[in-house]
């Protein structure tokens, strides 16, 4: 029943629409058509221009909303820049947020590739963080071992949570768009329950300092080490996120697994004929999506930027949703996703400075939402045009 995110995700990059400028010979003869160089340059310029236009429109609309509610949009944008990159050490903060966003996005790219609509990252992340809290506050041992253990268990937790949706999809034919979505709310409630019970996640009374639902804090040894570069401090997990991105990009583009995943996402039946079992590869992709989201949760916990190494209600702070949006805006291209992740991270870290201008910080959610909407338009338009051309050219020959 579900179609995945594929319908408008045609790659506009290297293999972009060949110009239908010559009629190929009827039968026989291996003629070679080629798009003219100039046509491609003009086409690329069009694309960039379209994107720029949409981005500007989104920013203007946001500015308008700010002005209409009595704020100063220029001050807001300035605060955003200060908070994200201009202020001292802010780049480090932004990188710290970028890490988990990127990891969630990578998992989303994998699920999307397989044609699945996994929108439950927020919940998978929370469960991952919960698993990490449980393990991280309970096992003893040298620091690195604990860190590794909690990260692994966070990935497992996220994968299991996505696994529920996978099982329902491949056993009972329930569309994953709905199950992953519903499971987000269930995850929050489950974590909330866990945070009320000491045998699960709640910290013992002496570690709580009068707060109701809070977990034990991670030992200093069990935290992801920080590194300082050029005056910016951030957890080393950022490097792993970037390395992970390179690895995922390689796996998707160059391996049999990535190839088959792509085939599955485009055409399930053809893929089945060619040896790709939808249930195996699809479930695998869903589990990986959840696993990455869970891992992001573990990193958020042990990295410290999100609650001082403790688990609280509302822990995910919408990193899950935002990471998913990053993947969607990045059009499934890993490199673009890294950049988009940085930008969206910047919006978050910048929003902290916005309050000082007197405008409610939630405005950055609005900016983000408008940006995403705006960025959905160019690919949709280009896809339509490309399809129209290709279909017409094909149609005219049958």
């Amino acid at each position, binding site marked *: 029943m579900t179609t995945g995110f594929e319908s408008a995700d045609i790659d506009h990059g290297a*293999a972009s629409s060949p110009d*239908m400028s010559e009629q190929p010979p009827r039968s026989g003869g291996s003629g070679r058509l080629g798009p003219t160089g100039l046509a491609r340059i003009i086409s690329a310029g069009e694309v960039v221009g379209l994107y720029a236009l949409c981005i500007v429109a989104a920013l203007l609309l946001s500015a308008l909303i700010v002005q209409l509610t009595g704020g100063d949009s220029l001050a807001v944008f300035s605060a955003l820049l200060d908070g994200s990159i201009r202020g001292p050490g802010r780049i480090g903060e932004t990188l710290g947020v970028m890490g988990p966003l990127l990891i969630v996005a990578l998992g989303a790219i994998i699920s999307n590739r397989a044609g699945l609509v996994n929108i439950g990252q927020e919940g998978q992340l929370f469960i991952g963080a919960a698993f990490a809290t449980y393990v991280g506050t309970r096992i003893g041992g040298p620091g690195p071992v604990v860190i590794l253990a909690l990260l692994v268990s966070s990935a497992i937790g996220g994968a299991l949570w996505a696994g529920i949706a996978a099982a329902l999809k491949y056993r009972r034919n329930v569309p994953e768009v709905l199950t992953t979505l519903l499971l987000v709310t269930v995850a929050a409630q489950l974590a909330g329950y866990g945070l009320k019970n000491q045998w699960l996640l709640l910290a013992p009374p002496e570690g709580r300092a009068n707060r109701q639902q809070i977990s034990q804090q991670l030992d200093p040894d069990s935290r992801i080490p920080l590194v300082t570069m050029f005056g910016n401090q951030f957890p080393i997990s950022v490097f792993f996120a970037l390395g992970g991105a390179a690895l995922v990009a390689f796996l998707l583009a160059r391996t*049999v697994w990535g190839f088959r995943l792509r085939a599955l996402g485009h055409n399930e039946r053809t893929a089945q004929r060619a*040896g790709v079992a939808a249930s195996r590869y699809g479930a695998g992709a869903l589990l990986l999506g959840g696993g990455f989201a869970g891992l992001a949760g573990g990193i958020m916990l042990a990295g410290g930027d999100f609650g001082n190494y403790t688990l609280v209600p509302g822990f995910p702070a919408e990193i899950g949703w935002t990471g998913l949006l990053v993947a969607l805006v990045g059009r499934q291209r890993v490199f673009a996703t890294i950049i988009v992740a940085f930008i969206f991270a910047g919006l978050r870290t910048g929003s902290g400075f916005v309050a000082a201008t007197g405008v409610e910080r939630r405005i950055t959610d609005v900016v983000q939402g408008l940006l995403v909407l705006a960025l959905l338009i160019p690919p949709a338009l280009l896809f339509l045009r490309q399809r129209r051309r290709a279909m017409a050219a094909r*149609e*005219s*020959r049958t």
Partner: protein
Amino acid sequence: MADEAHDEVNHPKSGTGPSGPVPGGLLATGRVAIRLDQVSKRYGAVTACDEVNLTLTAGRIHGVLGENGAGKSTLMKIMIGLVLPDEGTISVDGHRVRFVDPTDAARYGIGMVHQHFSLVEPLRVWENVALGDEGRLDPSATRDRVKEISDRYGLAVDPDAVVGDLPVGMRQRVEIIKCLRRDPSILIFDEPSSVLTPAESEQLFDTLRHVVLEEGRAVALVSHKLDEIMRATDEVTIMRQGAVVRQVRTSDVDAAELAEAMVGRAVSLRSERVALGVVDADFDGSDVPDTHLEPAPVVLEIDGLTVMTRDGRRLLDDLSLHVRKGEIVGIAGVEGNGQRPLADVLSSLIVLSSGEVRVDGASVQTGVAGAMAAAGIGVIPEDRHDSGVVLEMTVAENLALVGIVDIARAGVIDRRAMSSTAERLIDEFEISCAGPDAPLFSLSGGNQQRVVLARELSREPEVLIAAQPTRGLDVGAIEYMTNRLRQAAEAGVGILLISSELEEILDLAHRILVISDGRIIGEMARGEADLGRLGLLMGGQVA
């Protein structure tokens, strides 16, 4: 008004007009119903229609003949308002018109009976007939109209039946009723007999004659089959590469001339005539070389296959057959009798309810992804977009799709190997494309089919399933495909040819089976093939 400079159509015979007053909206026999002047349509630099002139006259059946890709389909779309022409004019009953959509064209009295139908299966017959009209929905009035048209033309159907429950022949009736309910003065039939048995085709042509002669309507019959044109039309327009090449009275020409006009050269090879849809009336199989295939080992054995749908319908009903090494077994039958499920089973897409598939004696699991391919079964599916290719992937990727593991080391794809294999296959199979990295959707239908063929043959299968392999291809591509299949058989591949084109089966198959309602109901060697008996079998009558 009637500028006859371009066409060779003579004035109509007299004496066949209606005897009483003509019902409102219809034209008297002999009047020009619709006229296309210098109509052109281009897609990019591809010219689909090139200054086409066409005149449809009331009281006559006008054939539009051309091979796949000649432009007749685009021309018809222009006539019914689905496509806007770039140049040229359309006049209906003497008045210049310009259609914005099919509803607009319908208002001018133009109706089309589509090849692939325009019906919505879960809705009822009367609801389908009412679709596309304007104004308030009036169920009882629509039902009455359906009954009225059914009775008048002998197209019996229950207005409250759900279309999805009806067999194909009945669905075509609904399609015709849907067309007739608007009282069109111009009717277009698009490849109507492709889904009918020979007997049903005859019945259809009788209906057409009735419609035309007794009611003074104008009918256009679009087809790529010479046979059909010769039998059912009064005059014919032949199109080639988007342009009109000849316009004649059918009685003034023979099949050979039509064929020559259609492809632009003298047609003498038997294979070409087959591709053009000429079935020799005196075909007796005696000119077929006798190949003694009995001793050859059985490569494919299908034993008692049964496939049931969720609601208990049998798509395949205890179907059994076998194919020997180097043998071409043709499965003839009208579409919708189980051909598709059969091909799907052999593509690992469906699980059997019961039965077994054996390749070289070894049983193969059904429904397990890739199992059939791994066992040595290659498939050219009926609908390549559905299960043959991945449109969004490149030519090279599609060529490597089934055997991707073979060009990988430790899970990593060897790009160079993939590319060079692709180049080799592109050359060998003469695939016309921008290169191995061209996305598949940029290739024409014929070339996409070559990609499928190349991929399957290059894997050196034991068995090749070819389902409707030449559908939608032009004559040259059909010839190529047919030759390739024959070559493959000579090299020892067992071929199962599933086709609803009798000509193709008669041309290629050593042994002919007929499928009906999910089972094989008849078998004959090519040497003893009998068109009459085949026709009966295809109609479901075991003779």
